């Protein structure tokens, strides 16, 4: 079982390209996860459990949300010991309810991970994930271009890879990278020509009157650098900075920077 709390700042919450549409905001999040590990055969283990989490935004209160996830992992450790390579298959089903209910969604994920710890200092891992988000089409009265209003239903595939380095007894560094291809949702002011060909479009009053959410196909490149400090054998605090760059349909390229401060306690 683990609990966590985090403070985040996102300089482009709505993934907008145009400066006038960019909205920055900070949020506080808390979560708890419970996983029961069951060893099923030599080197194989099954973990089942769930996550509960919530997030509160400073300005964009419509994005305040609560989530519940069910998780199932099948892990294979290919040898004995802490430095043995491992692979893990995971599936999860989650539900996120927002203060602005039109964003509510059910999230399905399937992932394949692999990792290897080289020694006490170096740890490497990689993860491929397929995600599908199902939301109800947004209901609104104004007819907009005859385009679907199912803007918050998305799917995508991502590849992540990371390395961790134990710098000292208490301090570790983490470097992560991301490549994601699939649907992205960008919220901007109405009439932006770059959004001429969205897959779906709907008003997004969370970001104010006149804001519209557009679902587009895009590819995101990301990198994250983090530093963690062990407080006790059970807990740490960490901070990180993540930079994302998305190249989306119609030349809608945007960037997003997220900084975070996290506390984790593992029982």
């Amino acid at each position, binding site marked *: 079982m683990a609990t966590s709390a985090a403070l985040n700042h996102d300089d482009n919450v709505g993934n907008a390209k145009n400066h006038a549409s960019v909205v920055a905001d900070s949020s506080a999040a808390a979560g708890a996860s419970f996983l029961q590990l069951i060893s099923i055969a030599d080197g194989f283990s099954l973990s089942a459990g769930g996550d509960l989490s919530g997030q509160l935004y400073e300005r964009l209160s419509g994005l305040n949300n609560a989530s519940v996830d069910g998780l199932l992992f099948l892990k294979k450790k290919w040898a004995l010991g*802490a430095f043995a390579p491992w692979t893990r298959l995971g599936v999860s089903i989650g539900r996120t309810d927002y203060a602005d209910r039109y964003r509510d969604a059910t999230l399905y994920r399937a992932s394949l991970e692999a990792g290897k710890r080289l020694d*006490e*200092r170096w*740890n490497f891992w990689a*993860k491929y994930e397929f995600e599908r988000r199902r939301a109800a089409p947004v209901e609104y009265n104004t007819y907009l271009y005859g385009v679907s209003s199912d803007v918050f239903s998305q799917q995508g595939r991502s590849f992540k890879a990371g390395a*961790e380095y134990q710098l000292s007894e208490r301090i570790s560094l983490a470097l992560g990278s991301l490549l994601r291809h699939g649907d992205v949702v960008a919220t901007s002011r109405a009439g932006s020509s770059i959004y001429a060909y969205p897959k779906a479009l709907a008003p997004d009053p969370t970001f104010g009157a006149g804001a519209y959410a557009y679902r587009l196909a895009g590819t995101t490149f990301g990198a*994250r650098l*983090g530093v963690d400090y062990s407080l006790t054998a059970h807990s740490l605090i960490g901070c990180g900075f993540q930079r994302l760059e998305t190249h989306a349909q119609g030349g809608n390229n945007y960037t997003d920077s997220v900084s975070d401060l996290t506390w984790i306690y*593992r029982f």
Partner: protein
Amino acid sequence: MKNLFATLGIVLACASAHAAELRVAVIDHKGRNVADAVVLAVAVDARNALHSHPPRDAIDQVDKQFVPFVKPVFVGSTVRFPNSDNIRHQVYSFSAPKKFELPLYAGTDAPPVVFDKPGVVVLGCNIHDWMIGYIYVSETPFFAKTGPLGTVSITDMPAGEYTVRIWHPNMDRAEETTSRRLTVSAEAPASAEWQISLKPSIHVPRVSGSASPSYP
């Protein structure tokens, strides 16, 4: 029967009369007390290297940690690995003095392990990679481990000359380089202090950052 008790009494009296004590303090290069340092005294005179029956010892698993972290045992000892956690553990060692693996178990189900070669045995758990523990298998019956104050007493030693050395899991040099010749007498305890340099204790972390695909 009377003769037997008389003989036993004489033996005990002689043993008591010749029993000596060695008190050792271990500090690090910054002058801080060093806990979990194993102090070993090897009798120079082989006649003083008394052999007792190897005892039975135990290393528990509590809160997904080995308890104690360091356990010195006499060569030939049998060690049990009870599991006080409410989850199963899979204890193993790759160390040359004793390679072994205890398949997943809970409670006291694991068979005991005999440590019949001297040296350092590093313990791990295949489920919880951060778990690490040490068994020091001593070739001499005169050994002890320092407590939180960095001190320890080895008692009931025959008076005489000993080669004393120190081992610690984070020591930055070989234990042989710490060897000293000391004389212990029955009249008064012998005292000695060691200063050792310790490396940073870099272990697999129990808690990883938010971006890490950590346990399980």
